[in-house]
């Protein structure tokens, strides 16, 4: 047993908290669900291996020639941007979660040790998450191409350590540059931009150069390969490691661990100061513009309250920004198609419908379940039906405002595609809202990040409903009756949700 207060003792404590937090996240706090979760994971794992096989099996024999190194590096950069985004979000959360800060800082344990362990925990959590995502793909490659592919796990671990290091450095830099209050919002936005930037960048290049949304097209272009450094360049060390070069893997792991060590040594002494500064943010004063009361009906007041709260929610704003960022490539495709008069517009319809469904699900959860004063609205002299309708209207109006400009622009290029997209947005948003309504719970808005755990059925139903409506919209836009298949699937999902939703008093 390690000595209390030592690094290993603290690491064991963090590990225990981390495991329990993860279990709570997976089982929504109900331990009885653990067996179900294990079975679901096993089934999902098998399913993902089946999906991964046709996607990557043909690359199992890949050799480290220049085109392969360029493509693998591109894929690694794409993954790394997502890991970095996740790291920044984790570091921001670690700064702003007051949690046990008082206990740590008033105990005789060195805060530097505690925060060193916490930074390492962030790196480990990110690496574990990335390994879990990579697992089916690496397994398929190793099964078909030999054990050399297992080196990819090492690459993923190294990427986790580097992402955590850069995430800590970037967040601390933001703290010092713009202060704790602004950092909470800006770090979220920066994380969203970083997470989306490389992916969107590839799509933008693909659209401008190849006229499609494929991310791999630019990575395989002769121009890029002609201008890339030679195959012996140090730039390709991560790609070589992923392809099974164990000396490159050793180099990469050594570099990532040294970087993580330097990050811990540099930033852990000040981590506590930043966390204290962040915890003081809620004490700072934000003044709002003064104006008098305006005559409004209860429903109007409820709608307005929802919009004000949505607009003042920094976490939601960053999530919305992420959704809007992902709409940029389709918007670019729209602009290019409009200019060139091509028929690629049909690709846009499902993207827009899917994004609307997903965004509506989040907004509906915040509005319907994330009510911070449930007793207040429940004791107001307004019927439950009016209350729910006001919240639904608030969500649908927000969706309409966000998507109207894109659909209007689409209307100039193709009125038919715009009409289909507009109808699809409405129906996907209404379906997502209906699902949230069926599975509504009483929660605080601050629990938004964990909304998926409150009902896994709602989460999957929302995702499959959006996908089905997106597919139906695409097929309608293409003018085929096959659209009925996904549309009926989506209706079946809604029907199923209504059947299994918990009864309401």
């Amino acid at each position, binding site marked *: 047993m390690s000595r209390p207060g030592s690094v290993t003792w603290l690491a064991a404590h963090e590990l225990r908290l981390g495991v329990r937090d993860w279990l709570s996240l997976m089982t929504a706090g109900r331990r009885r669900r653990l067996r179900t979760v294990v079975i679901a994971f096993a089934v999902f794992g098998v399913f993902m291996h089946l999906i991964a096989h046709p996607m990557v099996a043909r690359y199992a024999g890949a050799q480290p020639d220049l085109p392969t190194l360029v493509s693998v590096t591109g894929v690694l950069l794409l993954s790394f941007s997502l890991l970095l985004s996740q790291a920044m979000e984790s570091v921001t959360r670690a700064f702003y979660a007051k949690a046990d800060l008082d206990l740590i800082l008033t105990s005789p344990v060195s805060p530097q040790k505690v925060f060193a362990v916490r930074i390492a925990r962030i790196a480990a959590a990110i690496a574990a998450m990335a390994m879990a995502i990579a697992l089916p793909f690496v397994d398929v490659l190793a099964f078909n191409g030999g054990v050399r592919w297992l080196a990819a796990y090492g690459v993923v671990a190294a990427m986790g350590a580097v992402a955590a290091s850069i995430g800590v450095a970037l967040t601390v830099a933001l703290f010092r540059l713009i202060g704790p209050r602004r950092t909470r919002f800006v770090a979220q936005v920066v994380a969203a931009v970083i997470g989306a930037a490389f992916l969107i960048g590839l799509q933008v290049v693909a659209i401008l150069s190849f006229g499609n949304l494929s991310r791999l097209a630019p990575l395989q272009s002769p121009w890029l390969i002609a201008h890339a450094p030679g195959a012996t360049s140090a730039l390709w060390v991560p790609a070589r490691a992923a392809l099974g070069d164990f000396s490159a893997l050793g180099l990469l792991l050594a570099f990532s661990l040294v970087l993580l060590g330097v990050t811990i040594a540099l930033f852990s002494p000040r981590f506590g100061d930043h966390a204290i500064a962040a915890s003081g943010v809620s004490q700072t004063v*934000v003044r709002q*513009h003064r104006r008098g009361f305006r005559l409004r009906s209860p429903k109007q007041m*409820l709608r307005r309250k929802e919009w004000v709260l949505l607009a003042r929610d920094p976490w939601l704003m960053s999530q919305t920004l992420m959704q809007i960022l992902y709409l940029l490539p389709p918007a670019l495709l729209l602009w290019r198609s409009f200019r060139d008069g091509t028929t690629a517009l049909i690709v846009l319809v499902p993207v827009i419908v899917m994004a609307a469904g997903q965004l509506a699900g989040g907004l509906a959860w915040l509005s319907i379940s994330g009510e911070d004063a449930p007793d207040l609205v429940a*004791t107001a*002299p307004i*019927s439950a039906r009016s209350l729910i309708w006001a919240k639904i209207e608030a969500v649908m109006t927000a969706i309409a405002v966000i998507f109207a400009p894109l659909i209007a622009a689409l209307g100039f290029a193709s009125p038919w595609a715009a009409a289909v997209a507009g109808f699809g947005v409405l129906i996907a948003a209404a379906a997502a809202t209906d699902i949230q309504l069926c599975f509504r719970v009483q929660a605080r808005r601050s629990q938004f990040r964990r909304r998926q755990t409150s009902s896994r059925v709602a989460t999957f139903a929302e995702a499959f409903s959006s996908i089905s409506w997106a597919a139906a919209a695409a097929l309608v836009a293409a003018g085929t009756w096959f659209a009925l298949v996904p549309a009926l699937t989506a209706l079946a999902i809604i029907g199923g949700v209504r059947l299994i939703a918990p009864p309401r008093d």
Partner: protein
Amino acid sequence: MMSQKRPVALALRGLTKRYDRPAVDGLDLTVYGGEFYSLLGPNGAGKTTTLRMVVGLLKPDAGTITVSGIDALADPAAAKQVTAWVSDEPMIYDKLTPFEYLEFVAGLWRIDAKTGEARARELIDWLGLTPHMHERCEGFSKGMRQKVALAGALVHDPKLIILDEPLTGLDAGSARQVKTVLRERVAAGGTVVMTTHILEVAERMADRIGVIANGRLIAEGTLDELRHKSGAASATLEDTFLKLVAEEAA
């Protein structure tokens, strides 16, 4: 009895709510207009369940609830229009200012803008919130949040104010302000029903006290009447309360 000449503000008859066991068990209770009524009882006695049924947050299994002559189960909106609810956890929105919060509450209760704003400004001033009226509530202390919630409860000028442990976690100054506001409401003809674990508050403020245990009303009356019932004429409310609860448990 003077109370019998007053109109009835709240009448509960045979009120019942069961979970695994009866939480409220055929409760009969009458509170008169212009009265400060304090509901006491040990933890789990059924106080909060009773009050949550009165304000429409829980549906009773049996019984009736009448608020100012309105059947609250048949016409909940009309009953809610004249009732306010304040719990121990202030029900406010972190991202709204007190002024915005009161505008929202006034809108929910259909108070016209001019009257609502005038009342809101008066309450904000009364509760010492004027310097903070345009600041978001997210940085407020527990006492300030409870004052905002209380202002929200009063902005629609309710006839019946129901409070569940409203003084929990408040400092002495804030607690005194809240008590003063409640006394003034009663003096102005309003009715207050309040649960509290701070027996001195009930002793000093309540016109009548009801003691509830195991979901039933075991004693009710003025402090003197309760003392008399417990058989100790000079006892404090704490002694009286503990004796009554012990007798019920036995």
